């Protein structure tokens, strides 16, 4: 296959403060190829891409870009050679317009001191047109949705005449439809001879678009295979070095009384309207829908993070929840979407993070009993198999999957009756993911009523008893486990007028 190599790396090593992040990574990228890079969190994918983009310098090994040997590399140099990167989180300046954001990366070193606004807008419009969206270049980047921001990033890359495009989890924040749009773009670039390195945890995506797949484990290249020659189970085995029995451990639980019921909930501030649903003890109610369809907003409303006048029925009794503290007092837990921003306090120790919502259990007369707290922390570290030497290390020293387990431990510690999980496995490696799924099932078996918000359809389908599908900040419909299909969920999420529905039904 290697016709014309754009990128060749061999035996790249890199260590941080004595910790080997890369212990010999070899990688090739040909013209017009989509080469997927997969591995658990901490396998070295991000470090490798950062070396290619010049953000980091390799300790040893060879790197060749477009036939040029690279010794001392800088981001500017990498850009000049045609390397562009798209990250999981778009890195736009929110207070600048789309056109200015695009211009910033392209107009470097241009002569003259005055801005040619007309040309700026034209250039932006043309680039956006090439990626197939109709965005107003005068809009502020901060007002765009995540997907739109991601597309602006891609437009930037095209404008820079990128020959090598590195994409690090570009679909993590996108909805299925937006993902399809991205894939169409990837196909277009492939035609144009752009080489793409595609990093993702979503294996089904990778199999859809990748030509070759390289598996990294513990900083080493484990295998490089043609995408056609390897199936999902095989990939997972290569990544974790062991085989996973079943991907979703969902077990049937006899359902109890209704734990939480909401009738015609309205929250004008967040745009929620006419939301009605109920969850029984032991039941897992999935919440599917596009990003921004109102799922996180509902979670925040239920948990008292946004005030709302509609009553909520807990065990049949109407209550009003005005603050998270009240919600916790009523036995409700909420694992927020973004663990770094909302979930954990990264500077604090694991045991302090774990006890944060249940401090009354480890304290007396307002005093935290640190011994008791530490013991509780150690217990959860052991029980959830969190990879840490002790519970007294800072949360920021852990990898993403382990951080998520710490965030979950905090809520297990309050012994909740109702648990809201918002994207509990987002950006989590495959091994931790199935462990988290197992924990969710165990919670349900203990009689906890669970709301599971997820943008990953297989997860919703595999884990939930019923699935409420959101559209336009209300529930568009609820499907039972047996009747739910990806196509059915998508049809509800997009609304019937959508052409994708037919596509989905045909599939």
């Amino acid at each position, binding site marked *: 296959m290697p016709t014309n190599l754009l990128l060749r790396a061999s035996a790249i090593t890199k260590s*941080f*403060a004595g*910790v080997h*992040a890369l212990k010999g990574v070899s990688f090739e990228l040909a013209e017009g190829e989509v080469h997927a890079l997969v591995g658990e*969190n*901490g*396998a*070295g*994918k*991000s*470090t490798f891409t*950062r070396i290619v983009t010049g*953000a*980091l310098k390799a300790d040893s090994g060879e790197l060749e870009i477009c036939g040029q040997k690279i010794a001392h590399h800088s981001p500017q140099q990498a850009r000049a050679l045609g390397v562009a990167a798209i990250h999981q989180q778009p890195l736009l300046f929110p207070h600048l317009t789309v056109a200015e954001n695009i211009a910033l990366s392209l107009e470097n070193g241009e002569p003259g001191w005055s801005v040619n606004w007309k040309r700026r807008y034209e250039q932006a419009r043309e680039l956006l047109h090439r990626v197939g969206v109709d965005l107003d270049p005068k809009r502020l980047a901060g007002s765009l949705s995540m997907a739109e921001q991601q597309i602006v990033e891609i437009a930037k890359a095209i404008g820079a005449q990128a020959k090598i495009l590195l994409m690090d989890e570009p679909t993590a924040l996108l909805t299925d439809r937006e993902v399809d749009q991205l894939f169409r773009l990837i196909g277009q670039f492939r035609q144009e001879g752009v080489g793409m390195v595609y990093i993702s945890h979503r294996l089904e995506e990778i199999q859809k678009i990748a030509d070759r797949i390289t598996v990294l484990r513990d900083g080493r290249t484990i295998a490089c295979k043609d995408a056609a020659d390897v199936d999902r189970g095989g990939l997972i085995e290569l990544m974790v070095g062991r085989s996973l029995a079943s991907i979703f451990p969902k077990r049937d639980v006899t359902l109890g009384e209704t734990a939480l019921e909401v009738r015609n909930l309205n929250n004008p501030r967040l745009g929620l309207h006419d939301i009605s649903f109920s969850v029984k003890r032991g039941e897992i109610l999935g919440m599917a829908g596009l990003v921004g369809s109102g799922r996180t907003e509902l979670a925040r409303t239920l*948990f008292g*993070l946004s005030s709302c006048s509609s009553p909520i029925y807990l065990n049949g009794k109407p209550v009003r929840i005005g*603050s*998270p*503290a009240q*919600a*916790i007092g009523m036995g409700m837990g*909420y694992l*927020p979407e973004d663990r770094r*921003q*909302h*979930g*954990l*306090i*990264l*500077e*604090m120790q694991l045991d*302090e993070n774990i006890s*944060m*919502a249940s*401090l*009354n259990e480890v*304290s007396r007369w*307002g*005093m*935290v009993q*640190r011994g008791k707290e530490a013991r509780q922390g150690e217990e959860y570290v052991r029980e959830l198999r969190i990879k840490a030497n002790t519970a007294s290390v800072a949360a*920021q020293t852990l*990898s*993403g999957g382990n951080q998520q387990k710490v965030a979950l431990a*905090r809520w297990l510690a309050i012994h909740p009756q109702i648990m809201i999980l918002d994207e509990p496995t987002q*950006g989590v490696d495959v091994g931790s993911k199935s462990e988290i799924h197992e924990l969710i099932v165990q919670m349900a078996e203990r009689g906890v009523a669970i709301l599971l918000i997820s943008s990953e359809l297989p997860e919703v389908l595999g884990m939930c008893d019923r699935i409420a599908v959101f559209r336009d900040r209300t529930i568009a419909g609820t499907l039972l486990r047996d009747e739910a299909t990806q196509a059915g969920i998508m049809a509800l999420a997009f609304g019937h007028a959508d052409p994708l529905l037919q596509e989905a039904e045909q599939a």
Partner: protein
Amino acid sequence: MNPRIREAGLLLTIVALMLLLAWRTTGFFSAANLTDLFLANMPVMMIAVGMMMVILTGEIDISVGSIFAISSVVMGKCASTGVPIWLSGLIACAVGVLLGALNGRLIAYVRIPSIVATLATMVALRDGLRWYTQGSWIQGLPAGFQWFGMSQSGFTGLCVVAVVLITGLTALGLRNLRMGRAIVATGSNRMAACAAGIDARRVVFGVFAVTGGLAGLSAVLNSVRFNQIPSNSGLGLELKVIAAVAVGGAAITGGSATMTGTVLGVILLSCIGSALTFLGINAYWEKAIQGGIILIAVAADTLKLQRRDHAKTLPA
């Protein structure tokens, strides 16, 4: 950088300064000078305890000097109009708490950025006081006002006890009280603290009220050192306090500070002014040297952050 390293560095600087003073001067270590030095800087220490908590939550309070001045005048006015001295002290402390609570209200509930809110209260309170007193000092204080009617050494002992209690209990509280945990959590990541059930607004309100109260208390203890009270006391106090806390290693972005560091920062900044006098250096240099120390301290923090960010480029 580990806070212990920062503290060790501060300690070494202080020891070096002391050695220099012992070598080049006489009289610095006399009981009279040390007592005087302690009493003069006691307000800085007390308010620094509150300021450290404010900075821990990621806020700042630049109105403490004005609150200090108002509490001093309230103390004097009450005492000179025949209110018992102990009651005057209580009233002055209460005024401090109230003004701090006003700051807290504006910042936590009206959501005005703390630098703007306390800048406003700083100017408004200071100028309001100037208008009220017309610049005149408060005199005609009753007998038994000075030193609370105690001996000077007795009063100094009282102040030492107060300072030790306030710093010690706060340090313990920050480590072991649920409230202390809430303060640190709020400063580290306010959104995450809220999501864990901590009422961040009440935390912010609380630390401002406490800081106001400490400004009031220190004003009471400070005012009885003299037999008249200037209407412009505490001018520039906020800068010295903030400088001491920053030098002590508190992250100005919140979430990280130690009591040991703060105490050492106060000691260093307090000694420098006096040391210059003893070393025969023009007092004009004091502010410049203070500025230099702050710059070095903050630069050390910045370098630390850069190194940490670099180390953090481990894969996510």
